């Protein structure tokens, strides 16, 4: 940022008062940085002027229209939004779907007195319609919310699934101890009597060990 701030651009645009202009010029004599900036601004302006023969800036009406656009742009399809700086001639380049005069008539905001830019070359190189850019600005935070929401949902559901999926699907069972005891006895060569574990009636003499 230059030391002169806003006044620097005003100087280049020739909008400063006499006294202010003198002071700014005096500063420029001292400050290399500001001088460079003024020089580059002037060069830029000259190039812009060279691109646009008529050298006309967009009307204030056009600016207000730009400001109203984001809301509309957000809700319409991107292909539908080539409203702005293009004149009838440049329209096809900006958007092949954009209509002709009838379409423009339908737009109440478009001023009939709006200056016409006949030249294509006056457009900035990035010929993205202003509305689309504005729409992108409006959608970005929304998309961020969407992504965050999806991520939260995914993680939450995943975590819940992990917690809920802990147990096994298999039903709870109680081993048939009495039958198992008999099977064990039969294969190991003992009397296949029910184990006292499951048969409290069966007397087991419990005595202190040796």
């Amino acid at each position, binding site marked *: 940022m230059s030391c002169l701030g806003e006044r620097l651009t005003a100087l280049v645009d020739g909008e400063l008062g006499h006294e202010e202009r003198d002071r700014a010029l005096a500063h420029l004599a001292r400050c290399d940085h500001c001088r460079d900036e003024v020089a580059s601004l002037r060069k830029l302006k000259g190039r812009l002027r060279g691109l646009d023969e008529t050298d006309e800036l967009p009307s204030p009406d056009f600016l207000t229209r730009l400001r109203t656009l984001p809301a509309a742009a957000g809700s319409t399809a991107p292909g539908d939004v080539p409203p702005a700086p293009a004149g009838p001639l440049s329209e096809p380049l900006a958007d092949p779907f954009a209509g002709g005069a009838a379409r423009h008539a339908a737009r109440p905001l478009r001023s009939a007195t709006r200056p016409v830019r006949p030249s294509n070359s006056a457009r900035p190189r990035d010929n993205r319609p202003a509305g689309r850019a504005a729409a992108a600005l409006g959608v970005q935070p929304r998309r961020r919310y969407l992504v965050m929401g999806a991520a939260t949902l995914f993680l939450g559901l995943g975590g819940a699934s*992990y917690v809920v999926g802990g147990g096994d699907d298999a039903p709870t*069972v109680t081993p048939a*101890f009495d039958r198992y005891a008999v099977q064990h006895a039969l294969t190991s060569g003992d*009397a296949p*009597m029910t184990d006292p574990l499951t048969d409290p009636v069966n007397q087991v003499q419990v005595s202190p060990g040796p």
Partner: protein
Amino acid sequence: MIAKTVTRPGRRRSVLVCGLAGALVLAAALAGDPAVARRVRSDPGAVGLLRAAADAARRIPYEGRRFLTTWNRSRSSTSRVTVSHLPGEGIRYRSATAEDRYRPEAGAGDPTGFTPETLDLLTRNYSVVHGADAAVCGRPARVIEARRDDGSAAGRFWIDAETGLMLHRELIDATGRRVVAAGFSEISYTPSAKEPATYALNVPRGGAARFPASGGQGTAVVWSDRLDRADLAALRDRGWPVPKVLPGRLTLHDARRDAGGGAVHLSYSDGLAAVSVFVQRGTIDERALSGWRKTVKRGRTIFHRESLRRWAVSAGDGYVYTVLTDAPQSTADAVAANLPRDTTSFSTRVSRGARRLAAVANPFD
């Protein structure tokens, strides 16, 4: 110079021969089962007596009382039962208080627990030798000892010198204490023919009614659906945990499937101690295990119960394992702890949870 050239081929040949011989010895040592050496130490006569005892148990009629006693550090438990055997018919068991059981000769497994497989395991893991003769139930008996590598006795069998029937057997732990003893406390080889041969039909029904799920009618029959190697492979393919070996040199020697219950009985043995593992699908119903001791070891919950036999119940991967053995509780616990545990992968768990959540949220369910 000439001599050298003459001797060189000869030396080379001798080196080659020596190398070949060494390689052969090495190959034999590596390929040979180390148990072969141990098996040689087993007395074939003693093993033959054990084999004959299994045969005698089927052939010889007898009547008497059997007991099974197990010891742990602080106490012993004994179960007694009256038995009578008629060859070709079966064995009838009567207990003072419990339901009577009848074990038909056909399809009831081996009455001594000695099958060719378990005998093979016995000779592989222990050296089986003759011991000093003794007397049991007032009858002279041949004593056979199964010894560990260090020479200590791990098991003893008393076999009737006259009939060849096994009268008594016991297992001894490494400290020299008896842990299991089973056999006859009285025996007579002249059974009274008073009992009708069809006694299986007039077995009291009370016992069976108490356990509607049990074999029923007091008839004790081994699950007939024996699983061969292909069946076991198929089970493993379906995700069933069927380990071939368990800690403590226990080897799977028999597997059977319950006809209706969906349980699989895996019999493991090291030749002496029999360990049964019953596997069934499901998770443990902890309410049914009130009164069981519950321990958590290395993140695994095991329920134990020690009565006459030693029980341990654990679960994992959607299967419940019931381990049952006469051997000390530590064996049951070690087996239960080493059976396959939960291996549910993260994705399996999440997808299962998602399915459950969907089932809960689904209004049409």
